[in-house]
């Protein structure tokens, strides 16, 4: 697969996990997989930017949601996009119980570490989508 994977974080403003979703998406798109991924703002999908919707229809998306309401996944599906993987930051939290984030405007150290852990998990998914072998 050579098409960039679209990454849609919820960026929810009410909870730390929304900020973790946002920061994790940045780590992924800017640091870990800049050639393979592209950040897509959720609001632009809803508000009918034609070129955004066109991107969505031709590529696969990974959504990153900060809570169980799964707004990013709902929005992508509602716009006719394909959610290849819908991640919940809460699930990543469960796999890293020592990393409890706090702060919304500014994540604390645990929050940043959790964002990195999230980005690493998504990187594996992206590598699989690009047909790359991931080493244990």
């Amino acid at each position: 697969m050579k098409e960039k994977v679209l990454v849609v974080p919820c960026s929810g403003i009410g909870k730390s996990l929304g900020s973790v979703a946002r920061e994790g998406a940045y780590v992924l798109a800017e640091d870990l997989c800049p050639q393979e991924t592209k950040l897509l703002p959720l609001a632009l999908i809803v508000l009918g930017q034609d070129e955004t919707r066109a991107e969505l229809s031709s590529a696969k998306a990974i959504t990153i949601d900060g809570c169980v309401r799964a707004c990013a996944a709902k929005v992508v599906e509602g716009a006719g996009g394909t959610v290849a993987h819908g991640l919940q930051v809460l699930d990543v939290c469960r796999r890293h119980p020592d990393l409890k984030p706090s702060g919304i405007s500014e994540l604390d150290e645990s929050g940043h570490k959790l964002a990195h852990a999230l980005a690493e998990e998504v990187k594996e998914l992206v590598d699989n989508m690009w047909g790359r072998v991931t080493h244990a």
Partner: protein
Amino acid sequence: MPELAKKKVGLIACSGEEMPEGTITRLAVRQVLESLRPQLTVTICLPLFLAGGEGDRAFARSHPTIAVDGCEKRCAARGTEMYSGKPAVSIVVSDRMPTDSSELGSARRLSGTGMQVARDVADQIARHVDELLQPEWDRRRERPLESIKPQEESRPQQATCSCGSGIPVETLQVGGREVALIGLPLVFAQFRGEGKLPSNSTKTELIETLRIYNPIPHEDEAAYAEAILQKYAAFCRRSN
């Protein structure tokens, strides 16, 4: 029966990830919510709002809102208008940039200049919150009461409650014409529950409470107050 909303202002930030201005909206709104006006504001989560969050949408329908956008795409303002109503105030960060956008840092990490812009935007939001909450806010016409010309008030409009929260509307005769007041039955029920008898002091309290949710022109206040008190007295008689 649904509760009447206490008056607060809803803040909606675009939080756009593509540019530093989007991050500025996020930080500015959080600053107002956490430090500048914590008791007077509520943040509305834009993704939840757009994805169908009925609580956020209902709140935005029955309270004044301030949309804070990073750029001219105005996702927060347009989304708010689409699902609840036009925001009372729309701020676009890119419109008010005194400096080159590149000085703001990145979307992920704002520079010192970017952080200062966020603080400035937060101050601006806080001033708008104060303006919105001081004079009476005409929810139906989406503007402060002072901007309504007297001749507009002579054409009473039927208030419809589209917020989905079930806030009832009731009409009464004021000065020979029929006016609709949002929340009248709820206010009556609250006052009755608090044991307030129909009196001059109750009349004053009724007007002050109803003014939060309805435009009541100062020049007609006496007529409104008298009509409301009579209606309240009838309500109390029925409740006995």
